């Protein structure tokens, strides 16, 4: 149908990917077709299917919500076309004087309407396609010469428009192009949503590093841990690129032979690596050494630990219930990273105790059970607090198992630390006191359910012989962390020194 040339009403609409399009952009390169369609209209579907194969310059204006536009595009084989989304009250359709869908409007290079076709008319539509630079060979084959359309949505009242848009919304969502569901389908997850490791995100995480550099094999499947794979794990975990040096150091630490990651991956025990971070990197990354330090809420704390777990279960292949057969597992297995509260502590931080300079940043990994809280709100003396902590430590692994002979972490809260420091106690004083007092009689141990299998109790001279919980004070690792309050925590060990895992420390390749 020829119309007297008049300016096509300008519009601004978004496409299904939320990109904004203007009429001016669309016809800037010559005559272009505006194809007004609607998902529920069979003639619209058939017309769009025929148009999709022509290569004509065109955009589709789909009346209805984005879900309907995507569904229509998929059904018509038109996903390569620009699909603009027009919703209630369908002002653009009204501006173009629509009564029917499909309506095809040819707009020339000057922005004037040159021609239009209402409903399906094979010859008329073919002429429009031709003028828009499309291929009309075999155009519309299999379709009748004429086919009427349906009422365009701008002709319905507001209530009907809402009903139709509710139907749109009920359509299955489009295949997620945000990648989140796909991550679950691929199994690249610890059970929670992850950030899809696109090339751009992984490259940003790697920075100038060589992604092919190998840190070694991750047991038990011996997957090679390249820096690129570790970067993918860090992206999945939600790390910012500035956290990556800490992730690298933690991965190197757990891969040290003395840490025995292979045994830890395949144990029925609930143990997981706890990553203690020391030095100036903590403040630089905004890590949280205070309230909720063992828990949730801080991106750096949570995602650094999570990156290491994802490396263990994805690159290492120890997925829950398959190669990871931990009997009960635990929430600490999602990731566990503790920055020491060096600012509040009046004691030497862990890395200085281990011989590093205070200005060096380090990670120390220890295989550990989840935390068990220790409340002491009443002791008035340092010995009182020490006694409470000692008795809690005597329960690690099992209350009747002596000795554990394994690296055990005591997270001491600032208020407990202050009471001890006020009395002149150092970290060494506390752990010596714990080591000396954490004992139980051979008779008690023999009388317990598992006592007959305890070699130390079996070899004791008498029932009164005291068996120590720890074989040396160095097994007790003290870290000051937490906020206000008088709750400390005990992080029980995995299998003992020399037999299972030993703590490992790595410096972080990081500069302020």
């Amino acid at each position, binding site marked *: 149908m020829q119309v007297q040339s008049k300016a096509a009403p300008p519009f601004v609409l978004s496409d299904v990917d939320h990109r904004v399009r203007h009429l001016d952009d669309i016809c800037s390169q010559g005559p272009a077709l505006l194809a007004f369609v609607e998902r529920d209209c069979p003639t619209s579907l058939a017309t769009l299917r025929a148009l999709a194969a022509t290569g004509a310059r065109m955009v589709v204006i789909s009346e209805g919500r984005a879900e309907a536009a995507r569904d229509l595009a998929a059904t018509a084989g038109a996903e390569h076309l620009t699909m603009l989304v027009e919703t209630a009250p369908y002002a653009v359709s009204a501006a173009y004087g629509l009564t029917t869908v499909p309506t095809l409007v040819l707009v020339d290079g000057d922005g004037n309407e040159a021609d239009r076709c209402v409903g399906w008319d094979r010859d008329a539509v073919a002429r429009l396609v031709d003028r828009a630079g499309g291929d009309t060979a075999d155009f519309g084959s299999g379709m009748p010469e004429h086919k009427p359309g349906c009422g365009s949505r701008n002709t319905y009242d507001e209530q009907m428009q809402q009903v139709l848009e509710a139907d749109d919304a009920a359509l299955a969502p489009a295949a997620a192009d945000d990648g989140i569901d*796909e991550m679950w389908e691929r199994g*690249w997850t610890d059970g929670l949503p992850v950030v899809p490791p696109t090339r751009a995100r992984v490259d940003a995480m790697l920075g100038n590093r060589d992604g092919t550099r190998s840190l070694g094999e991750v047991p038990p*499947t011996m*997957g090679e841990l390249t820096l690129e*794979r570790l970067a993918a794990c860090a992206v999945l975990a939600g790390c910012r690129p500035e956290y990556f040096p800490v992730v690298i150091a933690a991965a190197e630490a757990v891969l040290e032979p003395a840490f025995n990651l292979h*045994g830890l991956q395949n*144990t029925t025990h609930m143990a997981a690596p706890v990553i203690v971070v020391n030095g100036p990197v903590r403040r630089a990354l905004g890590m949280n050494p205070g309230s909720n330090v063992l828990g949730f809420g801080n991106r750096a704390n949570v995602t650094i630990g999570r990156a290491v777990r994802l490396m263990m279960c994805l690159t290492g*292949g120890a997925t829950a219930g398959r190669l990871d057969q931990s009997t009960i597992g635990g929430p600490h297995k999602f990731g566990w990273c503790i920055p020491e509260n060096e600012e509040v502590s009046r004691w030497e931080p862990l890395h200085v105790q281990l011989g590093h300079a205070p200005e060096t940043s380090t990670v120390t990994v220890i295989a550990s059970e989840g935390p068990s809280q220790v409340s002491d709100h009443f002791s008035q003396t340092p010995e009182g607090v020490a006694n409470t902590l000692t008795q809690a430590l005597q329960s690690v692994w099992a209350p009747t198992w002596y000795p554990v002979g394994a690296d055990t972490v005591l997270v001491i809260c600032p208020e407990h630390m202050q009471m001890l420091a006020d009395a002149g106690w150092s970290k060494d004083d506390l752990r010596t006191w714990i080591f000396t007092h954490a004992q139980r009689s051979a008779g008690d141990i023999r009388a317990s359910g598992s006592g007959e299998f305890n070699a130390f109790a079996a070899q004791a001279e008498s029932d009164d012989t005291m068996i120590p919980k720890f074989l040396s004070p160095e097994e007790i690792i003290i870290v000051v962390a937490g906020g206000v309050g008088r709750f400390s925590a005990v992080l029980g060990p*995995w299998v003992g020194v020399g037999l*299972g895992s030993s703590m490992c420390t790595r410096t972080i390749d990081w500069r302020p």
Partner: protein
Amino acid sequence: MDRYVSPVDPRGRDRVAFAPRPQSLQGMTIGLLDINKTRGREFLDRLETLLLDRHGVAEVVRLRKPTFARVAPDNVLAEADRCGAVVEALAD
């Protein structure tokens, strides 16, 4: 091309094919590997008796790991290699 960078090494040994099962134990050398968990030795003692008395096994080789928490050392694996089959006592 995959739009995502994979954290998984495709060459990782996720699945290992089982060795073919012997049709008979007659005349075989069988290794019994104690992983050093409590009472594993008693279990393997009983197995040794049954294998020799009832299944015609020619020789039983007793092997032991220093700790259940680590992969067996190379010398233990080398001893296991000379056996036709190995039973590993896991216990927990």
